[in-house]
């Protein structure tokens, strides 16, 4: 009975693993195939890897795309660490009634769906980059908007964890 249960668990996990990993495998295999073969679901690696890569760099400005992604990734990581750790330290080490209230108000911003502020943000960034044209709209968006989220996911997690320990 115990053995059967063990086998079932391993079987279940193996199936889940295959489902999880398969799309990655297929993505890598498809890298080496022609588009026609990909749409027909070819499973074996082909010989078109370099041709595909050449096509990619010919048709799309990959260098710019990668540079942009890198700028956004680096800036937003930097600001995330900087702003969130500053605020986390301030809220935790200098606790006061006022700050607790402010923290809870800020926590509400987590409930704001991105879709609902997308258009005002678009207009806001448009206005900012008009007055300060050197700062691109994308850089601004990445560097200012994205870092704010992790502050809350970590702090609220911390809160829930404290709750769970209490019970």
């Amino acid at each position, binding site marked *: 009975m115990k053995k059967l249960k063990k086998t079932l668990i391993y079987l279940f996990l193996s199936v889940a*693993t295959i489902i999880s990993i398969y799309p990655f495998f297929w993505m890598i295999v498809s890298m080496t195939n022609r588009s026609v073969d990909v749409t027909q679901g070819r499973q074996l690696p082909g010989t078109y890897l370099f041709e595909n890569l050449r096509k990619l760099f010919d048709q799309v400005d990959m260098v710019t795309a990668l540079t942009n992604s890198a700028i956004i990734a680096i800036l937003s990581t930097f600001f995330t660490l900087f702003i969130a750790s500053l605020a986390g330290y301030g809220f935790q080490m200098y606790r006061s009634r006022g*700050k607790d209230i*402010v923290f809870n108000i800020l926590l509400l911003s987590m409930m704001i769906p991105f879709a*609902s502020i997308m258009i005002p943000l678009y207009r806001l960034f448009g206005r900012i980059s008009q007055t300060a044209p050197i700062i691109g709209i994308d850089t601004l968006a990445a560097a200012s908007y994205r870092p704010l989220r992790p502050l809350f996911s970590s702090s*609220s997690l911390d809160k*829930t964890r404290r709750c769970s320990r209490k019970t």
Partner: protein
Amino acid sequence: MKQLTNKNSIGWLFVLISVAAITLFYFYPMFDALLLSFQSGMGANLEYIGLANWSRLLNDPTLRQALINTMTYLIVQVPLMIVLALFFSVILNDPDLKFRGFFRTAIFLPAVTSLVAYSVIFKYMFSVDGIVNQLLMNLNMISEPIAFISDPVWAKVVIILAITWRWTGYNMIFYLSALQNIDRSIYEAARIDGANSFQQFIHITIPMLKPIILFTTITSTIGTLQLFDEVVNITGGGPGIQTISISQYIYDLSFKYTPNFGYAATVSYVIVILVVILSIIQFKVAGEKE
């Protein structure tokens, strides 16, 4: 006393940047969206039109379809994913399990993919001559390929499967880290009292994980209400508007059709209202006092 106020103001300095930034990038846009919902016009030429946008909401067939679709995704996908993630985390928390690290990594792996990339892969996998159809035909489960993407019902199934694939491992990690905080001796005591593993799961694991389950349910609900990338890339909202989501409709209203920021902002407030209502319900159901 003087030192105390001094210390307090230093604390305010620490939180100043985040307060300013969140006000500028979350609360101000919320307020701006509210103002926008009373305006109409093309692009940037807006004028106040009172409540016309809000009354248009009530008789908008596309919005109704988008709401139905989004609620369908929500009601089917979130419970499915939460249960699955709980299941995985309990299995993978067993210290006697071999290859635990490997299984954990494998199941978490989908969470690192970019939304657009995995959506495109799912689109190809579920195409008429894609591998899913080939597999099902080889197993003799179907005699003819299913048109997953162009069938209104199957298209929704594909989208739900895709989201579940992407986010189950992500939610599992939250449960795993919470499970590590549960004292093993509680389970031992339960076992001595004769509780089987199912009873242990219902009476110990679930109550202990309740705060985290609530947290993941709310974040998943918010996430699903904002569903965008998957729908746009897998079906493009089609066939017709059968799989369109609210976010995609807002996007279409603002940037694809004749730009109408005013009405788009009004529709976006529908999401805000939904999020608030659903979060209150979820808090009530979970019975949180705090």
